[in-house]
């Protein structure tokens, strides 16, 4: 059965499912008892079934001190010894405080110890960009983590993907980081109420097209779809592809599309340098060069910090206008007046 869920509701639903299914799943994070960010009691569950604290109790819903390094490190240690923690780090900009634990322990321990450890742990964090929350709250740092082998990274861009991917992440025996774009949180759609799993590493074609491929990531996905709709009116047929997970990355899906269209624009809300867009561009320039008929264009956030002022912020991120403009420039079509 399907019902309408917001992205945030879907995240809550996946968490509830996983906690019901497996006692070893616990939630750790700041202010998770009070459900401050709306994910530990989300969807229709809160009113109807009580919030997570009531459902699962204090032993499994663990309100922590503001100590990101130990939250992350303790979750890793717990995951190495029998639990399956789901860690709520709230804002993505707070993950840096625990970077040593991410890179030196979580990403390395299994490999370094010859497979003795497995570390089934999920870290949720939200990217509040575009909401005038200032430079300390607007980061989109997934590219930094993509450079760290041993982590899996997912960036669902719809409620259905959020539910199915988060569930797979929780059931996965490897550490997974999920980056949620807050501009997507209110997004609603029909979502399957039963349990389902979307495998990591399989992208999704949102719209078929023949002239150009637009690979879009996270919050750029709905913008890319809107751009494609706009382009369609101009007679340009754009295919929109969302890799959904960045590690593993569905490169075959991307190459398949580029092989068909011969042109590529990558829309990625991260800072440009060493972004996911850069990686996708490099992969295509290496493995699908023969199919390309035009330069690859990245539509990213410029390499600057995020200003607070509403007059300055919004237009920095990839949007339907900038994505469509990039597509036109790749196609050497001039902008309609």
């Amino acid at each position, binding site marked *: 059965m399907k019902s309408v869920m917001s992205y945030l509701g879907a995240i809550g639903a996946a968490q509830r499912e996983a906690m019901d299914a497996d006692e070893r799943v616990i939630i750790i994070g700041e202010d998770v008892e009070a459900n401050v960010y709306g994910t530990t009691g989300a969807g229709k569950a809160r009113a109807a079934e009580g919030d997570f604290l009531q459902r699962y109790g204090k032993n499994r819903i663990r309100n922590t001190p503001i*100590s990101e390094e130990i939250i992350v490190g303790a979750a890793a240690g717990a995951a190495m010894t029998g639990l399956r923690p789901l860690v709520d780090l709230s804002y993505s900009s707070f993950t840096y405080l625990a970077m040593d634990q991410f890179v030196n322990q979580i990403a390395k321990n299994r490999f370094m110890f010859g497979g003795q450890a497995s570390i089934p742990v999920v870290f949720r964090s939200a990217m509040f960009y575009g909401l005038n929350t*200032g430079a300390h709250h607007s980061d989109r740092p997934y590219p930094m983590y993509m450079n760290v082998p041993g982590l899996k990274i997912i960036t669902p861009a719809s409620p259905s993907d959020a539910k199915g991917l988060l569930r797979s992440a929780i059931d996965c025996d490897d550490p997974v980081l999920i980056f949620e774009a807050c501009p997507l949180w209110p997004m609603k759609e029909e979502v399957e109420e039963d349990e389902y799993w979307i495998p990591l590493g399989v992208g999704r074609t949102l719209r078929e097209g023949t002239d150009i491929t637009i690979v879009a990531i996270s919050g750029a996905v709905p913008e890319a779809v809107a751009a494609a709709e706009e382009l369609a009116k101009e007679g340009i047929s754009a295919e929109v592809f969302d890799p959904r997970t960045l590690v593993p990355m569905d490169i075959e899906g991307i190459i398949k599309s580029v092989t068909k269209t011969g042109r590529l624009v990558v829309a990625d809300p991260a800072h440009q340098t060493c972004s996911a867009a850069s990686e996708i561009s490099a992969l295509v320039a290496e493995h699908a060069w023969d199919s390309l008929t035009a330069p690859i264009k990245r539509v990213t956030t410029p390499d600057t910090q995020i200003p607070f002022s509403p*007059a300055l912020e919004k237009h920095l991120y990839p949007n339907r206008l900038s994505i469509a403009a990039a597509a036109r420039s790749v196609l050497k079509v001039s902008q309609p007046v």
Partner: protein
Amino acid sequence: MSSQLSKEFLLEAQRRMVRIRLFDERASKMVKRGQIPGTVHTSIGQEAQVVGACMALGDQDYMTGNHRSHGHPIGKGSPLSPLMAELVGKATGVCKGRGGSLHLADFSVGSLGESGIVGSSIPIATGAALSSKILNNGKVALAFFGDGAANQGNLYESMNLAGIWKLPVIFLCENNLYALSTPAHTVTSGVIASRAAGFDIPGIRVENGQNFIEVFDAVKTAVERARSGEGPSLIEVVTYRFNEHSEGLRLGVDYRDQNEKAEWLAKDPIVLFRDYLIQESIATAEELDAIFASVEAEVEEAFEFSQSSPFPDASDPYLNLYTEPFEVYA
């Protein structure tokens, strides 16, 4: 120490407390009316703790803070208009609209930066104290942070470094009993002030943080200690925020007890200080009313300034990112 304070000084203290109160009340309204994007975190109820600490510092001394970000600079003497313009995101803002609430600084009064990242500015204050020590310029640095931030590891690294190098820095913990929805006692093992002893530095707990004089005296002692080369101090001030964690935030749960709230609301630092000034015949009700009225006018002026100022020019997104800009391929 308090006995040596001049009338002028005491009235300035009250003026700054009232400034914080009225500025934050206005900012709160503006958030609700959509005149400020995002949110603000007010220092309403904590004015004695903020101003008591700031006025124990000299004008040249340094300070860092946190998301509760306007009280501190106002306490240190910042003019209100550029602060208000900053909250609105205007070009005339103290950070040219780039910082906004939570992320602002006013170097003109020694404010090296409030930080949206909890605890993250404590090392900055420690470093300012290091430069003061090496340059031998006599400046003291003070780091404001909350009871929540007191569980970030960098505080202990900072206390240790400042302890061995005898850096002129004061770690000032604003213990308002909660970090967002989380009661301090549920996430804090032991007493924050007592954590200083293990680092061989004084740890003082000011139980009555609603009283300007008590806060001022404790911080002043620490400032003198720092200035004379004896090193850092940790001061925990017990206080209470009267408003919600941030303006406009609505939590489904009531994490603060109604009686507790009522008890603390009765300990309004501005009222307490007003009563004290009158009782001690330091000032008359009229004088204090005049201060209130003039601050009201200041806040009104700041509001007008924030409204009439232009938004910043969006043409150069890289402005001030580097001191020496370079060409970017976008």
